[in-house]
Structures are given as structure tokens and as C-alpha cells.
């Protein structure tokens, strides 16, 4: 869960996250304010890479993406 919490924080906190969806290798997220996303923080949380296109942020975490997404959703709910 610590990893999920770190990722939420680096995405600008729970209130900044509109949607989060796991893929085989990455978390596809949509945020309200792209400026609040901390790329270094995401990498410190274990992300291999971060791809940003406007408010869509893809966090590359490897095949554990579905497990991490479930943890994040549990925290957000």
C-alpha cells in the first residue's frame, strides 16, 4: 500500500485524480491539474518512466499495475 500512497501523492493527491486505469505495464491516469504531478516523486515511488500528454499521465510500473491500481482505488474510495 505504501507504493500506492506514494503514487497518489506524486499525482498531486487524491483530489487531483479523476480516473485511474491499469494496463499490462502502466497506470493510465487522468488528473485535474497536470502541473501538480511530481514526476521525480513518481520515479521515487518505483515508476520506470512517466509519459504525459496534457492531463493524461501514464505511469509505467510494470506488470504489477493492476495490483497497484486496486490499492489506489481502495485508498481513493
Amino acid at each position: 500500500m505504501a507504493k500506492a500512497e506514494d503514487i497518489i501523492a506524486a499525482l498531486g493527491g487524491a483530489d487531483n485524480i479523476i480516473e485511474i486505469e491499469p494496463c499490462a505495464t502502466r497506470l493510465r491516469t487522468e488528473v485535474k491539474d497536470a502541473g501538480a504531478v511530481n514526476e521525480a516523486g513518481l520515479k521515487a515511488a518505483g515508476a520506470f518512466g512517466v509519459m504525459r500528454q496534457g492531463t493524461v499521465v501514464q505511469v509505467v510500473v510494470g506488470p504489477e499495475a493492476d495490483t497497484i491500481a486496486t490499492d489506489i482505488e481502495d485508498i481513493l474510495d
Partner: protein
Amino acid sequence: MTRVLSPVGGRVVGLAGVPDPVFAQAMVGPGTAVDPAREPGQAIAPVTGKIVKMHPHAYVVVDDEGHGVLVHLGIDTVQLKGEGFELLAAEGDRVTAGQPLVAWDPAAVEAGGRSPICAVVALDASAEALSDVVESGTVQRGAELYVWS
């Protein structure tokens, strides 16, 4: 030492030939990629081991040495939500290299506007750990793509 087999038959394009930066830049690991023949087929297990992740469009098999190989069938295929993919095995199953795991149709993926290119990634491996990596030419399903030491 793990011999990693091609999950599909087709034309080898290398990871750099995958139209997705995560794979092309080897963010999740080194490996290679195959542009599959445009005919309905069954993607096979690249190694003997346990299926630790089973999505309709992607799977990971970990062998007894702890080497996990990711096979990703097409790009952005998560958006298809499983449509067009039939699972022939389940997460947690022990499988043999060459065993069919997913039935799909690369031509249908392409017709939907997505690339059917299949990335075959050595998860968390260093590039130096792979040898004899095939990065061009044609490959038969089940032929060796690389050796992971």
C-alpha cells in the same frame, strides 16, 4: 538460462519497431517484438513456468529461474476490453513453452486501427543478460527469440 520462444509467427521488428515508447525505450525490460501474420491464431507461452498475470491482451509467464517474460499482444489493445481475445489458460496455471494461451486475430486488431505488433519483454532484465536476440527477419511461432542468462 532461459530460451524465450516467439509467441506468434511473423516478421521480427525489434523493440525499437514497437509504436509505443514504453516498449520502444525498453522501460519495462529488454527483448524484441514480432509483427504477426494477419491470420487468426493462438499465441503461445514463451517459456515453461507459471502464468503470474493473465490479461486478454497480455500475459506474463515466470519460469523456475524467476525469469518473467511479458507478451503484449498489440498496442493499446487494453482498450478492446478483451473483445476478440479468447483465453485458453488462467492466471496461476503452470504451462509448458509452446502451449497456446490466447486465441486472437491480428487482422481484426489492425482493422480496429491498432498495431498488432507483439512485444516479448524480459522483465527487469539488464540488456546484457540477453544474448542471440533476433531483431529482424521472419520467425515461426515457437522459434527462439533470445536467450536470457
